């Protein structure tokens, strides 16, 4: 019998195993699924906090599954970025769990289609828990093939969730989503194959050491990147995202928009700036930056043109994802640490803000029975907290101080100006202004006092539907003021970026 101490690296598996078991139980039992999920989300949050503390106290941790060292075994490891992404997932996940509870119980009240609603609630919880496990596994894994499996878990559960509403539009979107996700995974897998051909290892640290700058490795990186870009919905490959995100049920839109796309992006970023940093060329970085710039502008313009609130929020996701990529070309000037902080802040801020915004949109949808932007006036007096949350989330998306996105944009701007690449700065600024337009186009409708009395038909929304979004929005807004802590965690984790593993055979 082994006794666990706070220094034992085996704690790493908790964020994967806990939601996994919860998912199994949620499927097995048809009652009290919410309680199981809530407990799992809470425990997951605690476990992640524990890992964070462990990281700060003892530095990055490596845990070899089954005790088998690389190259043969699979390693899970924590470092700064991974822990921050886990924290993001855990906090958002807790909010989503509560919100989903409110959402489903509200829908259960309505007599029409209660059959379908029961079915949705029944299968939401296991799918969501397994998705959470997959995401956590993705952030923790240090094995390129294991990452493929986690990507598949995330992809399948996300597609199933996207189809859960059962409406034809969402089924179609979800089918497309599933195929795109599969295509992405296969492309990724082809990249893994190329990599295995040339390196013969799967552990990322070993790959980092063994990968030369051969053409095969380059091809592998290209394939891995294309696969992940598909899943991240970078602009030319973004077509699947808006319908899938907008037509899903509200808690699911939150999951997809705030968390799922971050997983593949995180991998992409890790590959480019950690594992394959030595073979990445400037022109490739500029190419990614250009795509990001196009994404920012295109997504924002599309968001402005939408007539439905949820579609607008979905397009805003495309725009916001662009910011993550526009950081790429600044790698040479900003340095890795700065780059990681830009991306992490952006990702965190977006996750919190976007989840708050989708939650608010979902509440509005449920309250009014539609989400046509031109007809949403008067919501302010009936859903004040939701409207407030929407506004704060919007502020955060615009990157106004003191949001986390502001910190990221500040660093983006200062590194682009410091390297005299002012055009990136211009794109960032115009993206913010466009975001202002789409955020406030809706916001101003909230403030319109409707001519007639609003039809007072619906039940009041449960506080579980309003408060999580407000709390998440506030976290996103004050992330900038809390900036030292993420930076501390990042700094703790950065030793792993330089850590060299003994290569070769054991």
């Amino acid at each position, binding site marked *: 019998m082994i006794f666990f101490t706070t220094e034992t690296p085996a704690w790493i598996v908790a964020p994967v195993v806990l939601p996994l078991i919860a998912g199994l139980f949620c499927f097995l039992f048809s009652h009290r699924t919410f309680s199981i999920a809530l407990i799992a989300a809470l425990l997951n949050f605690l476990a992640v906090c524990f890992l964070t503390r462990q990281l700060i106290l003892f530095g990055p941790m490596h845990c070899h599954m089954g005790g088998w060292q690389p190259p043969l075994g699979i390693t899970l490891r924590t470092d700064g970025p991974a822990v921050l992404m886990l924290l993001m997932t855990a906090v958002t996940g807790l909010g989503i769990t509560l919100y989903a509870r409110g959402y489903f119980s509200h829908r259960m009240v309505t007599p029409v289609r209660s059959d379908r609603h029961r079915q949705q609630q029944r299968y939401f919880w296991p799918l969501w828990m397994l998705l959470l496990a997959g995401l956590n596994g993705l952030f923790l894994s240090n094995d390129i093939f294991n990452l493929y499996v986690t990507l598949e878990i995330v992809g399948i559960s996300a597609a199933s969730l996207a189809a859960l509403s059962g409406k034809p539009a969402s089924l179609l979107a979800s089918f497309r989503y599933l195929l795109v996700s599969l295509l992405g995974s296969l492309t990724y897998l082809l990249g893994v194959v190329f990599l295995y051909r040339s390196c013969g290892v799967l552990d990322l640290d070993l790959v980092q050491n063994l990968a030369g700058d051969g053409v095969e490795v380059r091809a592998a990186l290209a394939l891995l990147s294309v696969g992940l870009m598909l899943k991240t919905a970078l602009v030319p490959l973004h077509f699947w995202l808006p319908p899938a995100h907008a037509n899903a049920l509200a808690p699911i839109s939150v999951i997809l928009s705030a968390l799922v796309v971050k997983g593949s992006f995180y991998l992409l970023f890790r590959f480019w700036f950690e594992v394959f940093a030595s073979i990445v060329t400037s022109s490739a970085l500029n190419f990614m930056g250009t795509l990001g710039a196009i994404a920012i502008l295109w997504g924002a313009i599309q968001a402005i043109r939408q007539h439905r609130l949820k579609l607008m929020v979905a397009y805003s996701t495309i725009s916001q994802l662009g910011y993550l990529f526009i950081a790429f070309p600044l790698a040479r000037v900003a340095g890795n640490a700065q780059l990681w*902080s830009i991306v992490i802040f952006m990702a965190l801020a977006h996750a919190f803000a976007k989840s708050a915004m989708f939650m608010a949109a979902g509440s509005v949808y449920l309250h009014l029975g539609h989400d046509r932007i031109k007809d949403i*006036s008067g919501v*302010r*007096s009936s859903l*004040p907290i939701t409207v*407030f949350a929407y*506004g704060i989330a919007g*502020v955060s998306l*615009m990157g*106004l*101080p*003191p949001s986390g996105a502001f*910190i990221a*944009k*500040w*660093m983006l*701007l*200062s590194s682009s*100006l*410091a390297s005299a690449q002012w055009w990136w*700065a211009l794109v960032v*600024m115009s993206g*913010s*202004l466009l975001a*202002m*337009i789409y955020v*406030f186009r809706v916001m*101003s409708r909230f*403030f*319109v*006092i409707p001519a007639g009395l609003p039809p007072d038909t619906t039940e009041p929304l449960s506080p579980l539907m309003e408060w999580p979004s407000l709390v998440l929005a506030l976290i996103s807004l004050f992330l*900038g*003021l809390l*900036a*030292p802590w993420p*930076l501390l965690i990042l700094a703790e984790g950065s030793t792993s970026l330089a850590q060299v593993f003994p290569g070769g055979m054991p």
Partner: protein
Amino acid sequence: MNPGQFLLTAILLSSFIPGIIIFSLPEEQHRLRTILNLCGSIIKISLVLVMDAAIYYGYIFEIRIPLIPGVDFLLNADPLSALFATLSSVLWLLTTVYAVGYLEGSPNRSHFFGYFSLCVTVTIGIALAGNLVTFLLFYEMLTLTTYPLVIHRGTEKSLRAGRNYLIYAFSGGAVFLFGVVWLQAVVGPVDFSATGFSPSYLDSHGTVLILIFALLIIGVGVKAALVPLHGWLPQAMVAPAPVSALLHAVAVVKAGAFGIVRIVLDVYGAQNLLLLGCLPLLTAVASITILYGSVRALQQDNLKRRLAFSTISQVSYIALGVSLIDQPLAVIGGLVHLVHQGLMKITLFFCAGNLAETLGIHRISEMHGVARRMPLTMTAFTIGALGMIGIPPTVGFISKWYLGLGGLAGGNWWVLAILVVSSFLNALYFLPILSRAWFGKQERPWPEELYIGRFETRLMLLVPPLVTAFTVMAAGLVANAQISPLTWVRFIVREYGL
């Protein structure tokens, strides 16, 4: 946390906490809301006065929270902060009283007063900001907190005004952010200080620094309504009168003007700017704004629109004053106008609001003989208007006097010319109103007589303009006293060693 930091935090929280509580109050809790508001503002004024005294005796207030390397959240109270903070907190109290009376019976009041309190918190934040990042933070927040107030009525017209306001303000904010980041990329982190950044950068980055100066001025110039950037202000007059008072006298326009002062005096510093030689640009823009605003004001029939253009013109006196930075007298004139303009303009907007709320009067052409119906309001209005024109013993005269002296001392006779022309134009657009109101004969019934009672209008609407009008006179009469805006501004200028 030392007492100074505690005091700064308390000053911010004294309006923030009431604001948050008010948001969560049910709509019907009028009394509790009013009590919260008044207590908050009285506490705030007391705390600010304590801070003023401490600053006068040299106490240093500072709260510094490092965010990321090179970016600190810094609150720092210096005499200039004290000037703006005192002005805002005092006027906030009056505006709150006025707003309570004004909004009696209208919907969504808890939102209104919630945003109102947040707005003042943010304004005080602007006053206390110790570096450009913190200033930017509160500056953007100001836009956000005032936007719901501007569109409070929820009509299409107010939405349009709000949209314009947002586009102007956020574009300005974006330009400002750009300038701040660029400045930091060139000279490193800059805290506000009496000397500005080190002059060693001037040789290597002269042109860039001028460009950045332009960017920063454009950024704050949007809120200060410098001429090509003023478009939002006249439209925003659709907002309720207390909001207009807030925009024009307490918070927004003032924040812009204050930003100009900060950039000129504390970021660049007098010496650097003189070496760079880019101040004439600001002088020119300010002068053009002064004249343009007055000319446009002449053409307006809508009373609030006329006042709005008058604001555009008057606020630029501040920019004009600080742009003549080598002349301490001009700087004094500019800075003291920050206070004086606020007092006068808030009086005028209060009175305009009274006319609209009591008799439904929105146009100047409807004002014939109104002074007989509302003598007290019109007395206040008259004092404000005379102050605007610059008739002694009002405070307006003091500002113009110092500006003119400063201009002459530097040999810039044209400053005097601008002042004279502007005063003439001021007279041209204010005196007809006064004569119409006092000596005109009521030709038709009032458009909409909304209030009939013991006084000429509701007491809560009547007292604030009388108080401010009294202050306009008093501060002018005792300008040289121990405690007066002028004395404080002299103290500021002495601190800068000009």
